[in-house]
């Protein structure tokens, strides 16, 4: 009943086929670029680049915009805060809050930044399966000497993919428990605190028990947490190197701007 694909959009575009490591690296670099960019010209370029990538991916722009809509409210608050709280030349003089030109500029930049960050991240998850992301992260972490901390990149990858797998059953449990408590006359509007307890306590209990069951099932199938091989071992293709090269050019372009 519950399927979690986050917001993956099935496709076979160049962006879908790229190695998850390439995409992860690109998202990180682009995020840093977005944060250090202080000019509207640079922002314009970043937006253009985003539109180009969206075009390549074949994902509809409206889909991406829709998935960042829930955070739109927060972004508006950030914008208003900057607009009214920055000192400088007033646009109009109002009694309590005075909007300033400096504020307008800062607010526009900041909200653009957040919006772009979210959009790039959404484009990444729209073109990469959660399991691929996990794979990519695992492979990137592998050279790190994590075993001195008592974990390996494989443990981390297993943990990540297990959590993702768990979400559907978690949601299903939540729905069942909610129904059960509603049947006992629970009324959220009446008492929110009690209502939350009535759902959260059994849900956490059930989840821990479920985790215990999964652990036992894994152990009885001889899971030892040692190095595991993957059926789809990642390997960088020519297109990956090309993509990284183009990305490097773009970064240089932005930096020299």
């Amino acid at each position, binding site marked *: 009943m519950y399927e979690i694909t986050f917001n993956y959009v099935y496709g076979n575009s160049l962006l879908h086929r790229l190695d998850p490591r390439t995409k992860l690296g690109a998202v990180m670099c682009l995020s840093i670029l977005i944060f250090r960019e202080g000019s509207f010209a640079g922002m314009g370029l970043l937006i253009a680049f985003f539109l180009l990538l969206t075009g390549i991916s074949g994902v509809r722009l409206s889909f991406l915009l829709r998935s960042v809509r829930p955070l739109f409210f927060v972004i508006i608050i950030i914008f208003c805060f900057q607009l009214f709280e920055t000192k400088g030349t007033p646009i109009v003089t109002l009694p309590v809050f005075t909007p300033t030109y400096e504020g307008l500029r800062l607010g526009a930049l900041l909200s653009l930044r957040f919006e772009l960050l979210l959009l790039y991240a959404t484009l990444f998850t729209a073109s990469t399966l959660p399991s691929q992301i996990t794979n990519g992260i695992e492979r990137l972490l592998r050279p790190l000497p994590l075993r001195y901390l008592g974990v390996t990149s494989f443990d981390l990858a297993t943990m990540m993919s297990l959590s993702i797998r768990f979400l559907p059953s978690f949601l299903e449990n939540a729905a069942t*428990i909610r*129904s*059960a408590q509603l*049947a*006992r*006359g629970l009324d959220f509007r009446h008492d929110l605190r009690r209502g939350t307890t009535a759902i959260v*306590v*059994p849900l956490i209990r059930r989840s821990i028990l479920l985790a215990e069951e999964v652990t036992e099932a894994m152990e009885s199938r001889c899971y030892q947490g040692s190095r595991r091989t993957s059926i789809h071992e990642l390997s960088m293709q020519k297109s990956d190197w090309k993509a990284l090269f183009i990305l490097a050019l773009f970064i240089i372009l932005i930096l020299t701007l």
Partner: protein
Amino acid sequence: MGIKVENLSYSYPGNQKRKPALENVSLEIARGEFAVISGTSGAGKSTLIKHFNGILTPESGRVTVDGLDTTSREVRRKVGMLFQHSQDQLFEETIYKEIAFGPSNFGIRGEELKERVHDALSFVHLDTRILNRSPFSLSGGEKRRVALAGIMALRPTYLVLDEPTAGLDPESRTKLLGRLQNIHKKGVGIIVVSHNMEEILPFAQKVISMEEGKIVFTGSPEEYLRVGHSPVSLLTRLIKELNRKGANLREDIFTAEEALKELQKLRPEKEREISEKIDGTVMQENV
């Protein structure tokens, strides 16, 4: 009066493109009736019963309980519902609070609340001494009994149970079914979702069979057996096998007493004839 479902259709949100979970379902369960809803997993049984107390509301069609629309809060109190894995719904600090949760949500306080909790507890044969213990200190079976007590404390007019005997040991099953029979005698309507027709048929007055979101059969248990819906009980299989060997017995039987009466018809000459035939086949098979 009773639970009335008219042309009910329902699809889960975000799933509109797929087949609906319920398609044009109509049925009526009278007040005080003992009904069984059967069907394979995914047939829409659980979706259907969630409409009885308004946890789900119809996409199209209408569901009423004693003439009340299921959006009314009163329906939640009238229709007590025990879900699968009911042992997982407990959350309060003490068993007393756990059982009192339902009635107190409907504004019952003081002496009456206390009385209801004690009644419900004795109904499931648990000792009042445990009332101050944590529900998490109980065994799985006891937790389920507390959950049932929590519903009974609502004093519902209808009691709906989703797979109540799943995962119980045979002794607890018999006890639970006995309890259901007792409440039924007191005039409470019982609606049970079950795969295990063999154990539930002797109690049922009405059988509703579902397939892929539609009702494929409604009728008495006798009719249900005559029509030959699976799964058939061991008893029915025996009678059908005997009939195949030449006996002429009623096939709509599901209690041991009736079966005995019917089997006595075979005496004496027919019985010998058939048993020889059976022995013959057994011998042949052994060879």
